[in-house]
């Protein structure tokens, strides 16, 4: 890290002390032109990734999957099965890599922890009154501590969208700081719920706010509102982590979540990462897909590439 980024970093860390300073900074970020951002995202989606590049992309995407189940109907049996699948996504092919993490509700963390113990697969838990975030702060923090205590090493928190949209940036900032502290050593992923932020300008501001407050990852969505991850939203977030590292030297990860269902979609995202932030982010430590059905499609395409035949969905476990 150079001297300038060190001083920039300490200057930026002061921002959280005052509402005015935060507002001035966030509103001073360059705007996002909606048409231009959507056009660029669409253009990145036209790359043609074939043969060896496709095989490489599929294995990387599998390693980046946060295999997720966030349903009221989740049971210990279901999450154990999911955890087993996370370790060995394709039982028929030992060369198939394991996924990045399993992502569940706090109550399900202990069951997943039993299965994942000793493996390299991370255990993520949503917390902070996911998905709405509509609970008193102390309950959100207790939720977070409980998840960590049960064995989660990654926490997916939601921001207070109401406060953000009302312009109470310091309130959002302070909540993230408090959640980061409650997470202890666990990695903190900050869910912006971009579908509720309405504009790309807001997505950029929320991304910076989350990074300034200490988030290790910024994540698009809970998957519980109609608009989840989109290419242009993820593009704006990738530009934010790129600019943040340039300013501070600290690298922050990105996790699009919700709505990414096919290998083709996943590859479009990897192309976007490659051409926006570069190879430093092409790693499960820095980029994840929050998804459930995506994994099976990746496995089917992988099998197609290795064996030459396309097997139907019956050959892969349903979760």
């Amino acid at each position, binding site marked *: 890290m150079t001297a300038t980024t060190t001083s920039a970093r300490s200057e930026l860390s002061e921002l959280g002390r005052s509402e005015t300073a935060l507002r001035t900074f966030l509103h001073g970020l360059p705007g996002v032109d909606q048409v231009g951002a959507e056009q660029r995202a669409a253009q990145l989606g*036209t790359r043609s990734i074939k043969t*060896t590049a496709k095989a490489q992309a599929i294995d990387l995407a599998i390693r980046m999957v946060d295999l997720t189940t966030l349903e009221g109907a989740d049971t210990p049996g279901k999450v154990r099965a999911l955890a087993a699948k996370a370790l060995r996504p394709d039982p028929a092919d030992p060369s198939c890599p394991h996924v990045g993490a399993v992502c569940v509700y706090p109550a399900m963390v202990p069951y997943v922890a039993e299965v994942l113990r000793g493996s390299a697969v991370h255990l993520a838990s949503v917390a902070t009154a996911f998905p709405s975030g509509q609970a008193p702060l102390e309950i959100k923090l207790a939720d977070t501590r409980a998840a960590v205590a049960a064995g989660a090493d990654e926490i997916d928190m939601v921001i207070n969208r109401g406060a953000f949209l009302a312009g109470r940036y310091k309130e959002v900032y302070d909540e993230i700081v408090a959640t980061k502290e409650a997470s202890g050593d666990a990695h903190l992923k900050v869910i912006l719920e971009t579908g509720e932020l309405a504009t790309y300008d807001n997505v950029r501001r929320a991304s910076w706010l989350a990074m300034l407050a200490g988030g290790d990852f910024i994540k698009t969505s809970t998957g519980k509102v109609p608009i989840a991850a989109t290419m242009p939203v993820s593009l704006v977030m990738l530009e934010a982590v790129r600019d943040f590292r340039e300013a501070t030297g600290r690298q922050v990860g990105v996790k699009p979540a919700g709505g990414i269902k096919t290998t083709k979609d996943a590859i479009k995202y990897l*192309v976007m990462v490659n*051409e926006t932030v570069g190879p430093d982010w*092409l790693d499960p430590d820095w980029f994840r897909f929050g998804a459930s059905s995506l994994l099976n499609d990746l496995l089917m395409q992988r099998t197609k590439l290795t064996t030459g035949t396309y097997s139907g969905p019956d050959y892969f476990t349903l979760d």
Partner: protein
Amino acid sequence: MFEYAPAPESRSVVDLKPSYGLFIDGTFVDPTDGGSFKSINPASEEVLAEVAEAGAQDVERAVRAARKAYDKVWGPMPGRDRAKYLYRIARLIQERSRELAVLESLDNGKPIRESRDVDLPLVAAHFFYYAGWADKLEHAGFGPNPRPIGVAAQVIPWNFPLLMLAWKIAPALAAGNTVVLKPAETTPLTALLFAEICQQADLPAGVVNILTGAGDTGRALVEHPGVDKVAFTGSTDVGRAIARSVAGTRKKLTLELGGKAANIVFDDAPIDQAVEGIVNGIFFNQGHVCCAGSRLLVQENVAERVLESLKRRMAQLRVGDPLDKNTDVGAINSAAQLERIRELSDAGSAEGAERWSPPCDLPDRGFWFAPTIFTGVTQAHRIAREEIFGPVLSVLTFRTPAEAVEKANNTPYGLSAGIWTDKGSRILWMADRLRAGVVWANTFNKFDPTSPFGGYKESGYGREGGRHGLEGYLNV
């Protein structure tokens, strides 16, 4: 590292003949004096086909065929029937768009991504759009019962061979004229495939005639006394010569000539999108674009940041095989054009501007030039004044909006300009003062058949596209 494997578009969709004749009066014929030339693939220098060179007698034949078709068939035909042919042509272009796109990339050197996603959709859209006008000319704002002019001589450049053909032929035919069109000598092949499409559409003989050849053929065509209208897109020098030769005749003239557009970035611009716009403005189609944003004017307080972002973005450009679907920048169209780009770039370095290109491996065969920017450029430098028509960007800075306007307008050209700012009022203020036919706001190189396109000053006169584009083909 994530390396993209080669993803070449198949050439097999194109069925190239070893040689092509001239398309006169609905059929392919041999040239009277038997001359020919070769069209090559600029990415490999391989010969694609041998093409006839039209002489004075061929021009005579073609103009006579066009006159006959105008008098007997196309002129008297009701607009709704002309529309049927134009719609049919538009649909055939869509059906055969993959074939046309691959051939365009082979003959021109432009990446398949552009011919597939930009050129061909616009070509079809132009025919669809003007087909709609054919039976509504009374409502175009040129008075009751506007009449066509007659026989149009059209000479088009090599940068967008098929798109320029569409810009010329679609409005001419919709208005009731017949045409003799000469494609550029380095890119004649898609025009010849278009002639086959005219046959396939049963277009009456003589309505569209295609004469291949070089400068002499073009001169003979525009100077032919049987021609009523001349439309030219190309260099300002040739445009001047045409204006001189047409002066004092009854011929109506429209010219779309060179440009040296300013792309102006203010400090409140959406930087990431502005950088995309700068890249699209100058590296789209290898910079072979008359309205290319070849002069970047950036406000000095964000210049460093914009340039850093621009360089980072340029390092992502993939230069190489035009048929690879992941190629962003293809081949320079000809050895002569490459020579001109090199000469002007060398002049830029010699005059003290600082040159930068991202590291990129250029193929051994064919004509290639790496995307290049020059910083520290002043208004006095040749690279800030002359049209380079290649992937070379000159970067200048400004302090105030008034200075931006002054620098942007300080050129003999006036085709296009771009403004990047988040402030709507400033966009309008600038657009009022910029002497350019097209002003883009927070975008660049956007085309649409409904939107008129054309220049001020030495960038030519007349408009193509939109309702305005009909005026050049109507007796008004």
